């Protein structure tokens, strides 16, 4: 007789506040319902207020794992990207957010965890172990990650250089990265604004890229970042 594979929740035994901030967090029934309700509301908002236009939707892989990589200029960015995935993938979609900004207080963590389904990425020493957990989880659970390799929102609307950290998720794996470019989110909600303006937003999705041959080392990561940056810039230049 074959043995059963019983796998307790990966965040079992953590107190609620720790669970929220854990990169091992797994959503139960109520959290999943909260995510789905949130994404439905966000999708409706983007469609009506920002007349969201999506180009290249056919490039999205059928199923996870994959990583959406995009330029970053507004808090709306992750919302636009996640809301465009089909329902069955949304429960496995995790925007990767800075632990020191989005998970610093219990209230912020609760919102980031319950509504957005974000996973924390710690900077510095603690980040190395967390990153390995995130990398393993991506493949094992067929997740979809949303990453902004610039590391921060653009203050002037121009795209900054990609940091090599993005390569650490992808080097030596068959997980595809999907380059995306966002237009209009800066005009709608620039970093210093608090209330969004009803500006049209366009999302352009490029062809997936994989980095199976790339070494999971510093040079590999830098090369991946460079190639992805070029791909996203290429999508931006389609306009001009």
């Amino acid at each position, binding site marked *: 007789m074959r043995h*059963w*594979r*019983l*796998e*307790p*929740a990966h965040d*079992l*035994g*953590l*107190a609620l506040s720790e669970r929220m901030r854990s990169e091992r967090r*797994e959503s*139960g*029934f109520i959290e*999943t319902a909260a995510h789905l309700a949130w994404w439905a509301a966000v999708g409706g908002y983007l469609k009506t207020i920002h007349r969201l236009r999506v180009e290249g939707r056919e490039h999205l892989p059928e199923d996870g794992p994959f990583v959406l990589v995009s330029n970053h200029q507004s808090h709306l960015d992750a919302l636009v990207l996640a809301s465009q995935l089909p329902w069955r993938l949304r*429960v496995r979609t995790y925007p990767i957010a800075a632990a020191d900004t989005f998970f610093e207080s219990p209230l912020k963590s609760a919102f980031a965890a319950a509504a957005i389904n974000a996973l924390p990425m710690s900077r510095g020493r603690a980040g190395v172990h967390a990153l390995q957990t995130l990398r393993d989880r991506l493949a094992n659970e067929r997740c979809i990650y949303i990453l902004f390799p610039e590391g921060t929102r653009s203050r002037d609307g121009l795209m900054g250089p990609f940091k090599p950290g993005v390569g650490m998720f992808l080097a030596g794996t068959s997980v595809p990265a999907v380059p995306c470019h966002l237009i209009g989110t800066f005009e709608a909600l620039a970093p210093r604004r608090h209330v969004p303006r009803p500006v049209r937003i366009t999302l352009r999705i490029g062809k997936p890229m994989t980095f199976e041959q790339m070494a999971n080392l510093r040079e590999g990561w830098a090369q991946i970042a460079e190639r992805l940056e070029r791909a996203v810039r290429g999508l931006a230049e389609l306009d001009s």
Partner: protein
Amino acid sequence: MNEMTRQRLFGATHAFDSPIVRGFVVGILGLFVLAPVLIVLLRRAGKVDVKHYDELMKRYRSWLVLATIMIVPVLLGAAWTILGVGLLSILCYREYARATGLFRERLMSLLVAVGILAVTFSVLDHWYELFMALFPLTVGTIAAVAILDDRPRGYIQRVALAVLAFVLFGACLGHLGYFANDPQFRPILFWLIVSVEMNDVFAYLTGKAFGRRKLAPRTSPNKTVGGAIGALVLTTVLAAFVGHFVFKGEVLDRPSRLIELGVIISICGQLGDLLISSIKRDLDIKDMGILFPGHGGWLDRFDSLILVAPAVFHFVGYFRGIGLDEPARILTGGY
């Protein structure tokens, strides 16, 4: 809904009508006043060290919360008792689902939750036929709906995990709420819950005093044969003695029946405990939750009630009946 039913469901003013309920509440309150005094005295006398003292106080505080959770709904009325048991079943299921990983099978999880809610509704409605019918119907639905995925790999595992969950937390634990359809539900439930909880305490104390041989070392390393026998004797005495007042003048008020009830409570209580221990051992986890310091989660504390509830319900039901004179189908209406 007639006035009598309304009073049963929501009549908190009648909470202390029965002298047995008054006795229980005074007794429990007395214990809660006495226990910390005793713990402090033991500490002063140097009988317990600091570590033990902190552990005892932690357990005491948890018991305070737990006792409130168990007593208040019963005093408030049958409706709150039934809804409380429904909520308890859902919380126990949640812990089970996270521990076994069944929560990842969202459809199965939804069906178990709907099954538990349906049981709670049938109990609230006092619709015994539906209450009984929900067992085969829910189990059948789980087995049937699991086909729809067209994912035969793992079919047996996810169906079996969901069925076991419904059996334990829907069907078995649901019986605890059904007692509330009897006009005498307050004395009966207090008697039952106190006997089950004291069964745990007796097993612990007599195990400490006389326990040498392990009962089931691979399942639960701290349980001893001495503790099991001690609990069986003491719980039987307690349950039979108090049961005599609860069922005074009824068919159950005979020494042999009362002793049988005590034996059922003690054995099923200990088996329920070992059942959840087996699940935890199989999963290599220590506790189902971290909610109550010193106890664990909901399931770690209420495990002994799972098997007791249906066994005692049907024993009492067979000889005496439960809520037979109360109007049935109070929400859906009869034919």
